[in-house]
């Protein structure tokens, strides 16, 4: 049987048998990425709305920087967070190195620019549409931001899902910061890297298929749970 076929078979066995190790790793992957996504969204979405509605010095530079940071190499982020969290580093006292919390921190840094940039592009267009209306209604800046965030929620969901995609598939940063420790910081991507390194390609492929299925399932679930339009009614 080909390796891909074996991989499918392995993935099937792991899922049907609810392999305890697989479940633990998958749940940790979800926990780390969803927590990072939640924190990143809380930071990035209001930031995107503020960049859309407020004019201030260096605004364009800020937007350009944010766009540039979308391509931030995860390995470099991992290295910087490692230095920050290592015993001699400025945040070493927190003891977050090689913990899921440290991995979350690294993922937040990676996800924030991506979510903020995509969200900003959507909110900028929405602001262009709403500008005169909200000014004429004498809204405060806080009300404008809240209105954009609420009315642009579908586009913002897409931005957040892009962040989830980036986080769940990320390996470089969490490998460095988490250390891929069994039962502590091992997640699907680091487990795939480990099994590939060991030459266990069927298992690595199996984990890969599980990762893909998980990513698609979470995307579909979030879309289904948060859909705002049903049969032409809101």
């Amino acid at each position, binding site marked *: 049987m080909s390796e891909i076929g074996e991989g499918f078979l392995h993935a099937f066995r792991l899922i049907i048998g609810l392999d305890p190790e697989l479940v633990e790793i998958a749940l940790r992957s979800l926990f780390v990425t969803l927590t990072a996504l939640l924190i990143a969204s809380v930071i990035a979405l209001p930031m995107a709305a503020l960049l859309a509605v407020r004019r201030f010095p260096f605004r364009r530079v800020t937007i350009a920087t944010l766009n540039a940071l979308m391509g931030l190499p995860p390995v470099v982020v991992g290295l910087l967070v490692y230095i920050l969290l290592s015993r001699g580093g400025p945040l070493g006292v927190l003891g977050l190195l090689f913990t899921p919390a440290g991995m979350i921190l690294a993922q937040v840094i990676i996800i924030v620019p991506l979510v903020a940039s995509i969200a900003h592009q959507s909110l900028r267009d929405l602001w262009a549409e709403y500008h005169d209306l909200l000014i004429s*209604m*004498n809204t405060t800046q806080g009300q404008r931001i809240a209105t954009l965030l609420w009315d642009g929620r579908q586009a913002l969901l897409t931005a957040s899902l892009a962040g989830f995609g980036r986080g769940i598939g990320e390996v470089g940063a969490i490998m460095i910061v988490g250390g891929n420790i069994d039962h502590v910081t091992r997640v699907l991507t680091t487990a795939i890297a480990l099994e590939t390194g060991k030459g266990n390609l069927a298992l690595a492929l199996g984990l890969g298929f599980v990762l893909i299925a998980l990513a698609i399932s979470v995307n579909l679930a979030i879309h289904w749970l948060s859909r705002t339009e049903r049969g032409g009614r809101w």
Partner: protein
Amino acid sequence: MSILLPLEVRGAMVRRRGKVLIGPVDLTLAGAGLSIIIGPNGAGKTSLLKMLHGIQRLSRGEIAWPCGLEEARRRQAFVFQTPVMLRRTVLENLIYPLRIAGMTRAEARPPAHDWCARIGLEAAAARPATMLSGGERQKLALARALIAGPDLLFLDEPCASLDGQATREIESILLTAAAKGTRIVMSTHDMGQARRLADEVLFILNGQVHEHVGAEGFFAGPVTAEARAFLKGDIID
């Protein structure tokens, strides 16, 4: 008379990228009823309305509100030629200005439902406002502007591209609002509509107010040659 009036405009001018959009304008807006702004395309009707409302910042001159700017901004509303619908339901579009004015959602729902019924959109209350027809959108935009009970309402050609039925409904809402004390300033291209609604007329050309007189007098015999030519249907610029 509203505490917003008399509104005094002195030497007001809006200039963008070196080009004068409107002004210098000197006028006093007082009394009650409907003031209709007319003039050819590009005369500055929209700019005048936006300047008075405060959407266009003044490059020069002043607009003096008797009650102060902050109070004045709270007591006026604007309806755009192309209505902007919030991406919410019809009902939520009506609740929005009341929430901005400080009402709770529970307080805002009854008047919103009431206005929904008044403009004939009761059955569409839960539908996305963006799915309404052009006439329904304009009625909703008008109701959204009136729901908080503004003293002064600006409208920029609200019936442009609407059919007769929708125009009739909009005019009826406007006349009711004016009868209840809302001072209305509105631009239009439709001379029939101007004759039907106007208590006074502002004729503008090249960004300047050429005539500001009672409607009857204006339509009976405009003072300026430009206004006479405009009423005759001549092309003027």
